[in-house]
C-alpha cells in the first residue's frame, strides 16, 4: 500500500472489506499524517489512543465479516459535536475545558456504523465566521497556496478544520455544520465536496447550537461518492430533536451515475451579482455546459428576493445565537471569571470567554430582539425568509430539479486579509449560500475549476427539500467532468 491517506473513503472501505488493508494500518497512517500537519492547525484535539482502540474493534468485526457501512474509516469531527468523554469546545475559550458526558446523535450514528475518530477539528468560534479565523485555537491554514506564493490562505469557515483536514489527507472525511454556508464555502475553498442537507435531515441533538432554525450537520469529503456515503450514516430521525424529520434515508451512493437526461436545471439570474469575478462567471457557464452535455436542460429562473437574504440572515442568525449562547454564563460549566456579584461574574465570564465576532453577534441579536426593534428587524427578517422560501417553491413547482449557482463569490483569500475593518466584507462570502439555509433546502458544493492563481473554485447545486439524492447525481456529473483537485504538499 503506497499511501493510505491518499485513498478515497469508498476505496478504503472496499479495501477493508477485502481485507487488503487493516483498520489499524489505515488509522495509523492517518494519525501520522495528522501529527505531521500540525502547521495547518486543523485539529484542536488529537485522539490517537481512542482512534487505535476503535480501529482495533473494527478489525475484529471485519475479520468476522461483520461491520457497519463505515467500519474502520478514520474521520475527523468538527469540535461543535459533543463527544462523550472527549473535550468539546466549539473552539471557544468559554468551553475550553468542557468534557461532555454524552455523544451527539450524528457522531453516535457514525460510531454505530463503525467509523473511527481521529480527533476534534478546528472551526470558527461557535461556528461564527467564514474563514476559521475566529477560533480560540487560532486560524486554520489551508493546504492550498497561490501559484508561486507561500502566503497562508484561509480554508473558509466555519468548518475550516474539516475542509483543511479532508483536503490535506488528514482524514477520509469529516463532519461539519452549516448555518449560512459553513460546509459549502470551505469545501469550495479547498477543492472538497460538502453537503448541507435539508433542515431536519440530521439531528441537532448534542451539537453545540449557533442558530437553531438554520443549523444543519453534514459531511465534507474528497469525492461526491464519499460525501454520499457519510451523509447516509449521519442522517436519520431522532426523537430527541423535534425538528428532525421522520423520513426514510435513501442510499445516496446509489444516486451516483444515474442519468440526468431530461432533468431541468435552473440558472437564477439574481446570483449574477455586481463585481463578480469573470472566472466565477466562466466557471458557472462551464458547469451548465457539463450538465447540458450530460443531457440536462438549462432553464433561466428568477429568485427575486435573493438580494434580501444576506441582511435577513444576519438578523435571524444572531437573534437565535444571542439566546442560544445565554447558557454560557459561568454558573454550571465552562469558564468562570469571578466578580463581586452575579452580574459582574456574568460580565467578566462572557467578556473573557467569548471572542470579538461572537460578542458582536450576541449584541446584534440582542438588539434586533429588543422591545421597539423586534418588528422592524426580527419580524421583517422572518417575513423575508418566508418570501425566499416561496421563491424556491415557485421555481421547483415549474418542474426544475435543481438550481446551479457559484458556491462563493471568489477563491480563498489570505489569512488576515478580510473583515478586519468591516465585518460585512467577510459576511459577503455567504451571499450564495445563506438563501439555502433560510429556505431549509439541501445544497452541495462541488469543486469545478481553478482561478488564475491555481486555487480551487466550487459550484453549488440547490435541491428540493429532502431530495439530496438528485444533488449527489448532479454533483457526480460535475465531478466527473471537472476532475479532482488536490493541493501540492508543502507542510
Amino acid at each position, binding site marked *: 500500500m503506497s499511501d493510505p491517506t491518499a485513498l478515497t473513503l469508498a476505496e478504503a472501505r472496499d479495501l477493508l472489506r477485502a481485507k487488503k488493508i487493516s483498520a489499524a494500518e489505515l488509522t495509523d497512517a492517518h494519525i501520522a499524517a495528522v501529527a505531521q500537519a500540525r502547521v495547518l492547525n486543523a485539529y484542536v484535539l488529537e485522539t490517537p489512543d481512542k482512534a487505535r482502540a476503535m480501529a482495533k474493534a473494527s478489525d475484529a468485526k471485519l475479520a468476522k465479516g461483520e461491520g457497519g457501512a463505515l467500519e474502520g474509516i478514520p474521520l475527523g469531527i468538527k469540535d461543535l459535536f459533543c463527544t462523550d468523554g472527549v473535550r468539546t469546545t466549539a473552539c471557544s475559550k468559554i468551553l475550553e475545558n468542557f468534557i461532555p458526558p454524552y455523544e451527539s446523535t450524528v457522531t453516535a450514528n457514525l460510531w454505530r456504523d463503525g467509523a473511527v475518530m481521529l480527533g476534534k477539528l478546528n472551526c470558527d468560534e461557535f461556528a461564527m465566521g467564514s474563514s476559521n479565523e475566529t477560533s480560540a485555537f487560532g486560524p486554520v491554514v489551508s493546504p492550498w497556496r497561490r501559484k508561486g506564493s507561500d502566503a497562508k490562505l484561509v480554508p473558509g469557515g466555519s468548518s475550516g478544520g474539516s475542509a483543511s483536514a479532508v483536503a490535506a489527507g488528514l482524514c477520509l472525511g469529516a463532519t461539519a455544520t452549516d448555518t449560512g454556508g459553513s460546509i459549502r464555502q470551505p469545501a469550495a475553498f479547498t477543492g472538497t465536496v460538502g453537503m448541507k442537507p435539508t433542515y431536519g435531515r440530521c439531528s441537532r441533538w448534542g451539537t453545540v447550537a449557533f442558530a*437553531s432554525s438554520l443549523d444543519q450537520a453534514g459531511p465534507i469529503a474528497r469525492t461526491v461518492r464519499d460525501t454520499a456515503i457519510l451523509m447516509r450514516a449521519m442522517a436519520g430521525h431522532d426523537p430527541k430533536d423535534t425538528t428532525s424529520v421522520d423520513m426514510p434515508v435513501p442510499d445516496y451512493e446509489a444516486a451516483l451515475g444515474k442519468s440526468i437526461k431530461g432533468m431541468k436545471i435552473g440558472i437564477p439570474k439574481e446570483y449574477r451579482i455586481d463585481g463578480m469575478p469573470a472566472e466565477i462567471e466562466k466557471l458557472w457557464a462551464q458547469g451548465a455546459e457539463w450538465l447540458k452535455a450530460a443531457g440536462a436542460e438549462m432553464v433561466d429562473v428568477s429568485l427575486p428576493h435573493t438580494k434580501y437574504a444576506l441582511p435577513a440572515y444576519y438578523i435571524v442568525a444572531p437573534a437565535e445565537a444571542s*439566546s442560544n449562547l445565554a*447558557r454560557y454564563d459561568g454558573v454550571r460549566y465552562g469558564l468562570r471569571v469571578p466578580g463581586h456579584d452575579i452580574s459582574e461574574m456574568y460580565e467578566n465570564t462572557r467578556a473573557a470567554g467569548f471572542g470579538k465576532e461572537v460578542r458582536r453577534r450576541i449584541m446584534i441579536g440582542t438588539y434586533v430582539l429588543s422591545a421597539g426593534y423586534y418588528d422592524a428587524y426580527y419580524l421583517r427578517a422572518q417575513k423575508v425568509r418566508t418570501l425566499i422560501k416561496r421563491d424556491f417553491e415557485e421555481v421547483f413547482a415549474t418542474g426544475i430539479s435543481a438550481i446551479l449557482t457559484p458556491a462563493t463569490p471568489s477563491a480563498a483569500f489570505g489569512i488576515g486579509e478580510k473583515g478586519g475593518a468591516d465585518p460585512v466584507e467577510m459576511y459577503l462570502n455567504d451571499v450564495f449560500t445563506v438563501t439555502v439555509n433560510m429556505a431549509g433546502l439541501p445544497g452541495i458544493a462541488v469543486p469545478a475549476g481553478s482561478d488564475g492563481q491555481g486555487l480551487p473554485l466550487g459550484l453549488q447545486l440547490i435541491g428540493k427539500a429532502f431530495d439530496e439524492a438528485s444533488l449527489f447525481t448532479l454533483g457526480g456529473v460535475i465531478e466527473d467532468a471537472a476532475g479532482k483537485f488536490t493541493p501540492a504538499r508543502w507542510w
Partner: protein
Amino acid sequence: MSAPASTRSKLIKGMTGDWEVVIGLEVHAQVSSRAKLFSGAATEFGGAPNSHVSLVDAAMPGMLPVINKECVAQAIRTGLGLNAKINLKSVFDRKNYFYPDLPQGYQISQYKEPIVGEGIVDVDLPDGESVAIGVERLHLEQDAGKSLHDQHPSMSYVDLNRSGVALMEIVSKPDLRSSAEAMAYLAKLRAILRYLGTCDGDMEKGSLRADVNVSVRKPGAPLGTRCEIKNVNSIRFVGQAVEVEARRQIEIIEDGGKIDQETRLYDPNKNETRSMRSKEEAHDYRYFPDPDLLPLEFTQGYVDELKSKLPELPDDKQARFITAFGLSPYDASVLVAERESAEFFETVTLGLTTSPKTKSGGQAELVAKVGMAVDSKVTRADGREDTKRDPKLAANWVINELFGRLNKEGRDIAASPVSAAQLGAILDLMADGTISGKIAKDLFEIVWTEGGDPRDIVEARGMKQVTDLGAIEKVVDEIIAQNPDKVEQARAKPQLIGWFVGQAMKSSGGKANPQAVNDLIKRKLGV
C-alpha cells in the same frame, strides 16, 4: 347571574370619597405530571438538591427540548375545566433573561399564541352573590430552579430540581373588585384544578402561587396604574395583599401623588407591600418563537376525547347535590369546595364501601365507583335520588361536626380520624333510634379520639337509648312526686314541661328517648 361590577364593588372609603379596587390574578399552577415539560426528569417534590436534573434541565450544550404530551393534555383538561377556548395550534417562545437558577438563560413559555384562550370561572361569594370572572388565557411554561443563599458565606447555591417543571399560567381578566372576590376566585380555581387532577393545589409547597395585579380608581373612572404583587402563596395572603395595597395606593393618590407601575412583594409579617423593581428597571425579555420547537398542534378530536373523560367539576357537582340530594345551595357549595369533602359526603350518603382516604390513583377509582353508584340509582318521581342515608342529615354532620372538628385541629379531610364508614354507622344508629342526637355527638367524639366500630362502642358502653316505657315511667313518676310546685306551674304554662323532660333525660344518663319522654310527661301531666 353575575352582577355588574359597579353594583358589586365593595367600595373603599377614602378622604376624597369612595374608591374601587380593580384586581387581576396571574396564577402559576404546577402541572401534575411525572416528568418535566421538556425533559424526562422526575418532578417529585423534596428530592435531594439537583437529584432530578437531566442534561436538558441543566442546559448542557446541544441539548434540545422535547414536549411532554401529558403536560399538554393537562393544560387542555384545565382549559376545558375553565370553559375556555382551546387553541389547536399554539407556539412556544423564549423569554430571555439572566438568572443563576435559569440554566438556559431563557424560559420556554408561550407569549403571543397560548394553548388556551378566553374562559369563564363562576365564583360564589360568601354573601351569596355569584360572579363570573373572565379568564384571559392559560399558557404552558417552564419553572425555574431555586437559588439557595444560606449555604455559603459569599456564594449562592442553585438547586435545579424544579428547573423545567411544567407550569400553567392562568391569567384572569381585571374582573375582580374586592379582596373577597380575589380570594373566592383563587379558591374556586384551585378547586377546579384539584378536581381535574391537573395541579395538586398545594400552596405551601409552591404548587400554586399568584401574582396579584392591583389598581384603584374612582367608580366609573378609567383604570388606574397597576402594581403587580409577585408570588403570593396563600389565599389568605392574597386577600391581605389586596387590602393593604389598595389602601397604600389610595393614600398616595389622595396625598396628591401618583402610582408608579412596578413589581412589589407582599410581606405577611409586616402586612405591607414593598417595591421590588420599577418599570424602568423591568426586563426586556426579548420574546421570540423558540426555534428548537415546532408549533404545538393537535386535533379537535383529541380535545373531544379528553373532554369525554373529564371528571365531574365543582359546579356540576354542586348542582347535582342540590337536585339529587335536596341540599341547600350553601351546604352544597361548602361540600364541593374540596373534592375530598364532596367524596366523603357522598360516600356517607350513598353508603359506599370505599373510603375517601384513598391515596392518589385511588381517587379515580372512587370517582368511578361514585359514578357507578349514581348510574345504578333509582330516580324517584321528584328527581331525588334514593340514598342509603338522609342527605341533609349527612350534610349537617359532615359540615358541622366533622369540618368543625377538623378545622379546630387544623387537619384536612384526608387526615380525618373518623372515616366515612364510621360516620355512616353513627348516623344509622341515630336513624334507627338506637342512640339520641346528643349521644351521637358523644359517640362521634369517642370514635374521633379512640377509633373503633360505633356499633360495638354503643353496645360495650351501654349507650343505647332507653325506649322501655316502663323504666322511663318510673323515673317520671318520681320526678312528678318530688316537684309538686313545678307540676302546678307546668299545668298553667305547658311550655314548662321542658324542665321535666330535661330532668328525666338527666336521670336516665341521656339514654332515654327524648320523644318518648316528652309524650309520657304530657300524658302524665294532662297537658
